[in-house]
């Protein structure tokens, strides 16, 4: 629980383009933010999924203390407040990666679907640049809606 | 509206009107003018001029009708 900055955070290689697109289209500021959103969604739905083909996405040093705090909280709640479960940041992030992986699936299915290039969803989802103009706002609105979704 | 005027005159009336208006002029002027108008009804300008020249010569001859 040192908020270790030396860990490479992974996502599924499939989402590489989507991560880039979301950042380049100013939907999120940086990768860690999208990762955080996905983790929250996955966690809220209590869905974890192993990453099929891991791909280093960002360094853990970009994760903010608040985000770390949330990750620790998730793990604590998951493990009956056993603090030993959050002592190793690598292990913490490994769990969170699985939540984020699942969260991304939900995000695509629920929301991003209509903003993707047709046909890209199944392989490597990519944003359709022509319909991403209002995406930042819609994205925020979607996230806000998720807070009202019961788990 | 005036009835005996150029306004409602037919082409034939126009000549009568012209003749009427020329009454106040000396007879040879009147004669030459009337002849000019009458010839003009059928002939082009140059042909009229030719015929008028002949008439002028005739009218300008010193005759007993010298009175003014």
């Amino acid at each position, binding site marked *: 629980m040192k908020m270790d900055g030396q860990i490479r955070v992974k996502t599924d290689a499939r989402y590489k383009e989507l991560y880039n697109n979301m950042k380049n289209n100013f939907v999120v500021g940086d990768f860690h933010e999208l990762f955080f959103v996905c983790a929250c969604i996955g966690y809220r739905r209590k869905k974890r999924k192993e990453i099929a083909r891991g791909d280093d996405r960002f360094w853990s040093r970009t994760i903010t203390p608040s985000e770390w705090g949330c990750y620790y909280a998730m793990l604590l709640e998951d493990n009956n407040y056993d603090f030993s479960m959050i002592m190793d940041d690598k292990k913490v992030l490994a769990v969170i990666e699985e939540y984020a992986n699942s969260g991304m699936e939900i995000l695509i299915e629920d929301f991003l679907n209509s903003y993707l290039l047709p046909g890209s969803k199944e392989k490597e989802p990519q944003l359709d640049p022509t319909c991403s103009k209002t995406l930042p706002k819609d994205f925020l609105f979607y996230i806000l809606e998720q807070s009202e979704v019961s788990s | 509206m005036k009835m005996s005027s150029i306004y409602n005159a037919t082409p034939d009336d126009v000549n009568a009107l012209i003749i009427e208006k020329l009454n106040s002029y000396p007879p040879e002027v009147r004669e030459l003018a009337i002849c000019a108008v009458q010839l003009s009804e059928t002939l082009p300008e*140059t042909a009229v001029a030719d015929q008028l020249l002949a008439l002028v010569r005739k009218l300008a001859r010193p005759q007993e009708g010298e009175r003014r």
Partner: protein
Amino acid sequence: MILQKMILENFRQFYGRQELELMSPGDPERNVTVVYGENGRGKTGLFRALVFCLYGERRLSQDGDVPDKELQLVNMSALRANPGKPVEASVELIFTHKGGTYNLRRAIVGMSEGSNVIEEIKEIRLRLTGVNGNTRTIDPKDVGEVIDRVLDRRVKEYFLFDGEKIERLTRAGVEQRREIGRGIRNLLNVDALENAIGAIRRVVKSLENDLAKSASSEQLYQLMQRLRKNEEEKDGLEKKLEQLEEERRKALKEIEITDKRLDEFKEIRHLLEKRKAYEQQFQTIEQQASEAMRSMRNMVCKAATLIIAPTITNVFEYIERQKRKGDIPSEIRRDLIQRILDEHRCICGNEIIEGTDAYKNILEWLKRTSDAAVQDAALNLWRYLSEICHHFSDDEDLIQKRIIEHSNLIQAMDNIRRELDRISKEIGGSERQDATELEAHRSYLQKSVTTIEAAIQNSEAQLKQLENEHERLLALLKEAKLKADRNDELSRRSLLARETLDALNAVHLEFTREIKNIIGEIATKIFHRLLDDEGRVNLHTILVNDDYSLEVLDRWGRPFLANISAGQRQIMSIAFIAALAMTASRKDRIEMPLFMDTPFGRLSYEHRKNLIKEVPALSSQWIMLATDTEFRQQEAQLLKATGKWGKFFFLRGTNDGNTRVEEKDINTVYAILQSGDDYL
């Protein structure tokens, strides 16, 4: 002359065969036909068709400098459908005049050769059915004369009242005088007299040549030479004046066009300013919107935190409880307990033996404590979560506020964009007009007009001098004549010819004055019928001056033209043109179909009302050419009330740029216009 039917075939915009039955059979009282169509649909084309059919002429005076090529009569679509083949265009008119029925057809054949179209008159056919019912076909070479007897070709254009002509007459000046002079000369109908004057002038010249050769009377000869020279100079100056006036007319026309374009610019200037303001406003809002978008992006993590708010709250509350219980941080350090257990000795010095109660108690303590790192971490976590928990509600509010703000900005942008579209549409394509360039061009034109006008003034002064000189010479000549040898035949001939020329000129002048007076009288009568009550009180007489300028006298006989309104000026012009038309008809009524390209422009309701009421009574037939802006609810109501409205034709534009004539029932049209809709 009453136009009963007009049949057009491939003529101008009218592709194929199209018929206009202008009078309802058996209903001669309903002599008003409305032809309704947008500009360019062929309203004036109908008048052109009439003139073409009657006289074989393709030009109207309003065509001005338009090249012949642009006045092509054969329909383009028909030519395109028959490339390289001759296409016939024709106009057939059926009209009644003095009991006779005339059926006149004139055809033209056109053929396209590359980009050129060659047109040639093909056929003229006139069948005349007399009062007795006998029909005869007129020899084609006599058709012109027969038609001229119905209506002299020289006066034909008085029966087309177009806005431009009316506008020209409302402006005082050379142009107006020229127009009026031309009109009056055409009406005089004294061809023989004019021919006679020309002939006598030739005689005078020839005789003076003779006189010069003989030189029997030096004094007379000298005088005549001077007179001749004077007259030549006068002729030259008159020609020069005419030229100058033509130049002036052209320059003024160009100024008018330039002014229109400048006006257009002026008209759109406020729109341009408005658009600029909107564009600036749009930019500001756009910036705000992108700012809002940025701030929304920064809220993504805060929003996501809300998703797991229950978890954060649970964990926070758990640690909080632990803290309250004293478990975190634990009162006794774990490493101390571990040492006691390892060394089997308490901090008080007593030995602690495994398996005793004391040992068990200490073991229990050990379970309740955690190591320092974990405790520090828990406390840190507690701080972070506390921070997050305390902001949940504020964050949610803020995010919602930002979303709403952004939506409002987008809405505002949409509104401005719509407004900008509307303004741009209103501005049209003229916006890029370089006003400065136009203004420079205008001031150049204005300068040349000033120069031309100075030259005109100069020439007029010279002319005046020559005229005075001419009069003086004539007087001298008369004196000389008295002294001249009565036997000098040459002198006598010459003098006689000159006196005759003067006499005929005097008669011509008298006729002109008479016609002018009559036109003035008729125009005055019509003027009074068309004016509103106030105008009728103040404006008494329309006068055509000797120089062909128009004047209005008030009821005390004083010139009043300078004081009348634009609408009154327009009414005056209409009255004057109507007087010309009536004079041409030589009747108390205009005996020709009057084509009026709706001159309602500047007219007040009262004037419109009078015009609509009076024109059907003034003319044998009124063909009103109207656009949707000219013929609306009010006009339809006024026209219907006259009981004279018989026909309505709609000129509908087709996809291929042609015009289709559609006759509509006047009651239906009336109902549509009354409901407030444009017919178009």
